[in-house]
């Protein structure tokens, strides 16, 4: 699909345009800031809060571009579409060639759409923020650009740049607008990620220098024989970075802290799309560029995945903070991605990619719901809540719906991904899949028990003043998320077909090296 117009670059950099617009607005005077914080109702009496409207407009624009791309995406051709490219750095002599190259294929297209969608959700769920709104919405848009860049980069250097760019807005968003132990959590998140990035950069440089190019489409494992690091080491280095991001046990402890202390919108984007960068990277870089090493690592990946699923779910059950509980459930759910990948077949890998998309929607919705509840109760401790459904029934419907989606109920999106992973992976990873089934039971246990303790039970007078969902932004978010989760649950083809297209070339590579290896003895 070539629209004859750099639509992808527009998509990636449109949010930055929004940042520029917001930056050009006059800031609120210190006195205004003081009034907002100390005179109740001042903000609503004052002028329109432009930053959030600009952020909404820009993120909606991005979503529309992503949607149009999703619709006109040519489903009959495999490979990258909407490609924008030109040479960026050509230092032939030292073999350092960087291309400005962006494109989407079946694997990244749904993730691009997911990012654009969840950013709109993030903007809307932040509608009532009134602390330093200019910077807040600007950083949200920077975050969107960086994630879109990661999902569409076709060059390792750009991939790395965008991967790192994401840290700046995240650090500021958590440490300024967060709650609880936010400085610790923000720093932990950044340091942990940078720790992994160091390994990733070493791996990228080794690959790029050996292959004379950083273009993902051109690097192949044969070229890596000359690298200054052996291929399995490169693989392991890059895997460390992605495992931290995904995350997998035992590299996961940054996640509950960062999620819990982040503002709602950031939790949504963090769980919804940032974790997906890890899974996407594993499929796009590790298995595409180094299929042979990947094929040898299948059992290890499956075991790590199963440990994440089961151990993550068991730890989740003991959590006492509702947001932390959901954060931990992500560890368990992301284990399914590794399990699906380890199948090394189209079915399992499509399921893993599907899990990235569905988990983004479902956990995004769970964080939205917890955030909306927290806005009202000002506590996240499960022990403090009881019988909330009596007073906030509409939020109760949303919470129960999201919870059921999270435990993999059929007709909702999560089921499709999990069942596809199970069916795809059992043949090659029989024992790990058998153990992973426990995760399905444990997920039901922690979610239903949490619902029972927070939303069900007798009325508690102390919550009788809570307003139910009552703002158009809340209805929009809940309605849109529900609609998408049901749509993907009953008609998964819209996304599954694309993902299947995206993973097919990867599987072909793997099959080619495996059969060559078998043939060569």
């Amino acid at each position, binding site marked *: 699909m070539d629209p004859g117009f750099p639509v992808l670059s527009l998509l990636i950099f449109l949010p930055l345009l929004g940042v520029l617009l917001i930056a050009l607005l006059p800031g609120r005077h210190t006195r205004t800031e003081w009034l907002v914080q100390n005179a109740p109702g001042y903000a609503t009496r004052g002028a329109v809060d432009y930053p959030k409207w600009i952020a909404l407009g820009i993120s909606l624009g991005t979503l529309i571009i992503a949607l149009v791309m999703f619709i006109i995406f040519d489903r009959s051709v495999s490979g990258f579409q909407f490609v924008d490219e030109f040479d960026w750095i050509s230092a032939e002599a030292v073999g350092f060639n960087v291309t400005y190259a962006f494109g989407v294929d079946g694997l990244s297209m749904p993730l691009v759409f997911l990012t654009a969608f969840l950013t709109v959700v993030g903007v809307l769920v932040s509608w009532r923020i009134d602390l330093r709104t200019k910077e807040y919405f600007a950083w949200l848009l920077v975050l969107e650009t960086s994630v879109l860049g990661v999902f569409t980069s076709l060059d390792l250097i750009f991939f790395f740049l965008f991967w790192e760019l994401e840290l700046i807005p995240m650090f500021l968003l958590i440490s300024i607008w967060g709650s609880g132990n936010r400085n610790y959590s923000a720093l932990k998140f950044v340091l*942990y990620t940078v720790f992994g990035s160091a390994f990733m950069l070493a791996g990228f440089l080794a690959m790029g220098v050996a292959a004379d190019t950083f273009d993902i489409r051109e690097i192949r494992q044969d070229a890596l024989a000359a690298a200054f690091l052996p291929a399995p080491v490169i693989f392991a280095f890059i895997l460390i970075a992605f495992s931290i991001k995904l995350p997998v046990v035992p590299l996961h402890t940054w996640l509950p802290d960062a999620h819990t202390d982040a503002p709602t919108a950031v939790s949504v984007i963090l769980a919804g799309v940032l974790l997906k960068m890890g899974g996407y990277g594993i499929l796009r870089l590790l298995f595409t560029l180094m299929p042979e090493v990947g094929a040898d690592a299948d059992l290890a990946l499956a075991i790590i995945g199963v440990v994440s699923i089961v151990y993550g779910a068991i730890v989740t059950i003991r959590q006492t903070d509702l947001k932390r509980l959901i954060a931990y459930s992500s560890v368990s759910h992301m284990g399914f991605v590794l399990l699906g990948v380890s199948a090394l077949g189209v079915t399992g890998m499509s399921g893993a990619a599907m899990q990235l998309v569905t988990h983004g929607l479902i956990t995004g919705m769970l964080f939205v719901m917890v955030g909306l509840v927290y806005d009202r109760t000002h506590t996240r401790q499960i022990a403090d809540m009881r019988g909330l459904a009596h007073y906030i029934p509409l939020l109760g419907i949303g919470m129960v719906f999201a919870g059921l989606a999270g435990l993999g109920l059929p007709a909702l999106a999560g089921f499709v991904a999990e069942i596809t992973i199970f069916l795809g992976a059992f043949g090659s990873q029989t024992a790990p899949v*058998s153990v992973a*089934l426990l995760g*399905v039971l444990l997920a*039901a246990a922690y979610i239903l*028990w949490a619902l029972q303790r927070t939303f069900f039970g007798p009325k508690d007078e102390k919550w009788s003043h809570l307003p139910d969902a*009552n703002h158009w932004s809340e209805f929009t978010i809940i309605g849109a998320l529900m609609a998408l989760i049901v749509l993907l649950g009953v008609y998964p083809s819209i996304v599954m077909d694309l993902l*299947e297209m995206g993973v097919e070339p990867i599987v072909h590579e793997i099959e080619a090296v495996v059969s060559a290896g078998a043939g060569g003895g």
Partner: protein
Amino acid sequence: MSETIFWVILFLPLTAFVLAGISAVNQNLQRQIPEWDPNYPRSWKPIADLFCGPRLASTPLIIALAVAFLLAVINLIDSIGLRGLPLGIGTHELFTAGELVVNVGVRIDGLTSVMLVVVTGVSLLVQVYSTGYMDGDHGYRRYFAFMALFTTSMLGLVLADNLLMLFAFWELVGLTSYLLIGFWFHRPAAAAAAKKAFLVTRLGDLGMLAAMILIYSETGTLDIASINVLADSGAEAGMFAINGLMIGQTAMTLFGLGLIAGAVGKSAQFPLHIWLPDAMEGPTPVSALVHSATMVAAGVYLLARFFPVIHASSTASDLIAWIGAGTALGAALLAMVQVDIKRVLAYSTISQLAYMMFAIGIGGYAAAVFHLMTHAFFKAMLFLGSGSVNHSTNTFDMRRMGGLRTLMPITFLTFAVGTLSLAGIFPLSGFWSKDEILIYAWDHNKGVFVLGLLAAGLTAAYMVRAVYMTFFGQYRGGEDVAPGEHGNEDPSHPHESPRSMTMPLLILMVISVVAGFLTIGGEFQTWVYGALPDPKEGSFHWSWGIFLGSTALALAAGGAAYMFMHHRDRVRSWGIGGIWPIPEAQKFATELFYLDSLAENLLARRVFYGWIARSSAWFDATIVDGVVNRAWREGLTISNGARFVQNGWVQAGTLSIGLGGMIIWIAVVLF
């Protein structure tokens, strides 16, 4: 009939669900309209009310079910014309992922046709009853939304032509059961029971999920008919092979065992029976429809659907036969000591489902399905009867009832007919179906037969005890309405329930009386045999010995129970407190054989939550995260230690350069 008709049957209640759901959400929206928009245009009110009225929740569902029931009856007549043979009706591709092709499709044969009539028929009557029973409840709309969703899921379950679709609807009925048990979520017991039901059944579902994954990875198909044909082909040298599909004997056995795990969970068989009695926390019509007539019978349906698979392995068929026989007797023993009328019926349901289970295990496929059908009608009637009693007394505790025979004559009449049918008294429907199972057991497995016969005697005894405590003797006052609940304001004067509740009871009574005659001549058996890969003509079995023996046993046990209850005071004076002469035995039974506390307190709470989960959480916080924090702290310490070098003094920098230069110079000179 064309395929469209079956999608219509499925989508009718789904449409009702959407309408009821809109109505329920609208109710909650309207509650707070003045709060969020003071300028809410009042002229919209009538429109909003149209979508908020309680009847929008119930009327469409009743109409939808009436139409669906008619279609199901027409289909059954068609199916009878075809002797129950399968009409291979369409399959559509839903999505693909590599080699995996997931279809949705319907398959119609004698078994499905019977199930469609039972589900739509009982659901229709229960919904009519519910309009009376739930009238005035705050959650009326939500109730019908859940009921509509349940009926949809149950219909999908019986229509499904492949295992994945069946599993999806299987989970959905589990969900709606969860929502309905926890319907009155302000009661902690209801919220806990809902969660327990979902988790215990899901434990069984894991087996079914594993079975599905296994059969897919072995044969590459999820199509029910193909799997059955494969299982029916018979093993040669440990391999089943037909039509290009192949599977080993071991895998086939494991597949059967996985299905049995699913069925044992859903149909509340030992050891996963513990959720069903707690599920009685749901509204009574829910217990009638979901927890006696349809959903819990889905386990039996599953095994009947995969009958050739169960019998492709003697391990699987023996296992289910003995689980069934043991559960039939054990649950009947527990039913003897319950004081809550719904719990008596719940244990009775477990016991009756167990009959169907062991019937399948010993090969009595048609007898099991027949008992499933008759049981659905008379047990739904019994539950609805207990709801009718509750409607006027506000209690399910039989110690607070009594003497309702004259005060609630229609309820008494229908309950009595249900009791006789359940006890297997000639010529009511329960007699025909239960005797058919017993005759089959006598011919094929004497051990199972003995357990089944004992359970049949106990059935008569516990039902007579329940009827006596509820309807005979003096009225013991009922219970006042709990604060914040909805019920009869004057429980000291019980009255017969409204017509919306008694009509369904009377209709079910008529069905319960006549349904049994379907078996005479083997007609019914022929229809359902049509669903098997290798259909055969049904035949009617009759055994004077078993007829006389089981009837005599039922009458004797019922009579003994009656005498015991009637002369309770004199029996007490002999030093016998409960129905069990030994106090220890009585306690063992009232403690439910300690199975519930073993599972909940020991396994779930102590071992899992208190030990496994707690140590994992400790490990995570202290070790896994501890290492990270420690590394961080050590890093800071090292940095702090090295900081003195970067002190910014020009002199220090010059000194370093000088010293460094000297070291290099010395090194160069020396080496």
